[in-house]
């Protein structure tokens, strides 16, 4: 058991997904943000150790948010993992898209998600 739970910000307009991810991963302190327009502001306040970022969202897409985070002095070193519904699992194994950020194809099992989170937290 960790003394302090790692803080994960999950930015996704799919409320069911963020809520169930929070419930399913009790070993992390998870902050849900379903409005992508508020993602940067929430990240500055929450100060996450890692950000899970959906790609296609109505207000601002994942690519824009990643660029804002990288430009922010306090957040620029926070690992980002994209979550996307429009690539296949095979592609996530083969290549890194979105400017070199790692990404996970939805749907993802909790086990796979934890594995990826731990891999990038360790870095």
């Amino acid at each position, binding site marked *: 058991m960790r003394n302090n739970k790692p803080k994960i910000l999950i930015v996704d307009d*799919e409320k*069911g*997904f963020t809520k*169930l*991810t929070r*419930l*399913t991963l009790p070993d992390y302190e998870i902050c849900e943000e379903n409005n992508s327009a508020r993602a940067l502001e929430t990240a500055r306040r929450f100060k996450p150790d890692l950000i899970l970022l959906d790609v*296609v969202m109505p207000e601002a897409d994942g690519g824009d948010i990643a660029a804002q985070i990288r430009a922010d002095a306090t957040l620029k070193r926070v690992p980002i993992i994209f*979550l996307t*519904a*429009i*690539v*296949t*699992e*095979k592609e996530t194994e083969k290549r890194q898209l979105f400017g070199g950020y790692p990404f996970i*194809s*939805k*749907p*993802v*099992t*909790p*086990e796979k998600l934890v594995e990826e989170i731990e891999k990038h937290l360790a870095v």
Partner: protein
Amino acid sequence: MQLEPELIRAEAAVRNSEERYRELIASITDYIYSVRLHHGAVIETSHGPGCLAVTGYQPQEYASDPNLWHRMVHPDDRTAVVANAAQMAEGKVPPTIEHRIFHRDGSIRWIRNQRVPHYSAEGTFAGYDGLVSDVTSRKQAEEALTEANVRLREVLASLTKSHEELKSTQMQLIEAEKLQTIGQLAAGVAHEVKNPLAVLQMGLGYLGRQPDWTAEPTIMVVKEMRDAVNRADAVVGDLLEFAAPKQPELRDRDVEPLIRRSLTLVRHELNAANVRVATNFAGNLPACRLDSNKLKQAFVNIFTNACHAMADGGSLTITTSSSRITESEMNGVARSRSGTRFKPGDAVVLVEIADNGTGIPEDKLSKIFDPYYTTKPTGKGTGLGLTVTKAIIDMHGGCINVRNGVDGGVVVTVILRSRMKDEK
């Protein structure tokens, strides 16, 4: 002094008469001539006055120069004219001849020479009368017509070629547009389906960890639901794979080992359907530039289709060969809507896959490459198999043709561009 007006009138009358004579001569296009013979030798010729207009020579010039006519004949026509005249001299009436002569003014004229024999009172062949007609205008019109016809044929051939190219381009555009639409549709479907699936997957993950859910049959229920989510995800994944075909990783490969590996992948299905496989491999085929994984997928799809068409057993015959593509093979390929990618003489490897299954209704053949078109019962096919197969063959610059076999069943021909035997 009184005579002068008379003289002027007389001169005018003479000029007028000469003018009318010239016009008359110019309008003459025919004249007659006569040849008298004795024991086959010409002893006298006489030409009507019209010969001046047609040939430029006076009748008396012909009378005084027996070779004049011969010299006037165009050198290219001389042999035929001499042979024709020789026949006439023997009393055998030759067919009417048309040939060129040089007019006295140097111009070339076409004339038509038609003859009638005449006989002495004793009934012996005594000579012949001929009618020479100037047919230059008609010949020129004929030549112009022939030239126009040739040009017309050239234009028609060019138009036909353009039409074929246009049809091919149109077909490719339609397919490209279709693929673009499918790409957009696939991305939309993927987003709208995979997000709810992600919720379900995460929810099942949560439920699976609850103490109340760790006993049978709940474990089994959760597992079934997870499997269903994974299946749905795989279907969407296939759609995305198809809609966004990646660039193939091309290497020089032998086709035959690749076919054998593809057969291994469907062996279970072939055995279950009691399908016998016969391979007529040419051996020593030239290498082709292939992405082996993608091409294996294409062959697996074709074999699987054949298997489904032979549910009660049958035989699958795979024949390979290499050749230079022929015009008729190209036409066959064009009919398959795959577009013509080859030109006659290109080195190719041909793979023919023949089954003796149920075949495809002729009116359905044109639709078999369309996405989501299937002739199989629900649950047997997704309607993407041949579409994906064609996309794979297309990305290799090859062609695929599907037709019904003469003795039933389906024959699929895959044509792949190969290297020449001596090409490195």
